[in-house]
C-alpha cells in the first residue's frame, strides 16, 4: 500500500513538474501557484516522508540485516540443528516472526526503543562503510531480560517452569540474566562444526 502510494506521488509529481516547466505561464495564475506548491513542495515532501517510513520498515527485516556480509554467520546460526541454540530454536520454530527475526530480539522494548534501535542501526552502517568491523562483534550493551520477557513474561510455559518459579522476581528485576542459563546464542565461532537444519534461510520467511 505504501509503495503504491509512493509510486503514485512520484508519477504525479513528475507530470506536474513537466507541465509547469513546459508551460511556465501556468505558474502566473493563482491556480498555477497552487499547482506549483503541490509539485515543488507537498508531493515531493510527502514522497520523502512515505519513502522514509517504508525504508525504516524494511530495515526491520531479516533480509535487510543479513544483507551486510558481516552478518552472514549470524544468519547461518539461525539454522543450527540444536535445541540448545537459542536463536536457532526461536527462528526455526517460529517463536519469532521469521521476517523480522533480528529486530524482534535485538530491538529495545522501551518507549523509544525503536528510535534507539534505529540509531544503533546507523552506527552499524557507519562501521560497515566507513569504520573497521571488529573481529568479534559484540552488543553495545549487555542483553536485557526485558527483551526476553516482552514475549515470555506472563506465559504459562515460562512462569510455571520448574527452573523459573523460584527466580521469577530476580528475572523480572534483571538481577539474574536469562543468559546465565540460556547461554548458547549466536555461536558463530563453531558454525563450521555444527549440523544444520537446512542449507539456506527459508525464502518464504524473509
Amino acid at each position, binding site marked *: 500500500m505504501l509503495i503504491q502510494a509512493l509510486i503514485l506521488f512520484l508519477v504525479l509529481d513528475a507530470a506536474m513538474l513537466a507541465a509547469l516547466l513546459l508551460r*511556465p505561464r501556468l505558474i502566473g495564475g493563482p491556480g498555477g501557484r497552487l499547482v506549483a506548491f503541490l509539485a515543488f513542495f507537498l508531493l515531493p515532501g510527502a514522497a520523502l516522508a512515505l519513502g522514509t517510513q517504508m525504508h525504516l520498515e524494511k530495515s526491520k527485516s531479516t533480509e535487510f540485516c543479513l544483507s*551486510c556480509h558481516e552478518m552472514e554467520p549470524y544468519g547461518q546460526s539461525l539454522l543450527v540443528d540444536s535445541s540448545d541454540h537459542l536463536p536457532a530454536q526461536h527462528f526455526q520454530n517460529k517463536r519469532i516472526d521469521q521476517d523480522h527475526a533480528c529486530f524482534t530480539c535485538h530491538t529495545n522494548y522501551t518507549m523509544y526503543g525503536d528510535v534507539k534501535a534505529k540509531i544503533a542501526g546507523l552506527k552499524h552502517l557507519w562501521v560497515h562503510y566507513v569504520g573497521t568491523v571488529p573481529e568479534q562483534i559484540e552488543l553495545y550493551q549487555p542483553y536485557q531480560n526485558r527483551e526476553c520477557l516482552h514475549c515470555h513474561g506472563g506465559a504459562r510455559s515460562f512462569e510455571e517452569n520448574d527452573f523459573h518459579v523460584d527466580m521469577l522476581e530476580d528475572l523480572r528485576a534483571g538481577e539474574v540474566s536469562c543468559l546465565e542459563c540460556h547461554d548458547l546464542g549466536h555461536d558463530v565461532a563453531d558454525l563450521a562444526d555444527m549440523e544444520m537444519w537446512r542449507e539456506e534461510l527459508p525464502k518464504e520467511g524473509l
Partner: protein
Amino acid sequence: MSEATGQTTAMPKAPERAPRRLLIAAAFILVGLLLEAVTMGMNNAAGFLLFLGGGGLFTAVGIILYFREVLSGGS
C-alpha cells in the same frame, strides 16, 4: 493610450520560460524522486543510504530552491 498621461502602458507579459531557479529546483526534485524510485526495490543498507543520502538530499535541495524563488518574488 492612457487618458490621464497620454502615455502608453504595456501589459505585463506572461513569462515565456520558467525562472532559472525553478528549473534547477525541478531538476533536483526530479533526480531526487528518480533516486527514491530506484531504491524502492532495494532491501539493504545501500538502498537505505541511497534513498536518504541521494534521493532525500536532492529532493530537499529542490524544495529549498523553490522556496527561495517564491520568497524572493522571482527577482
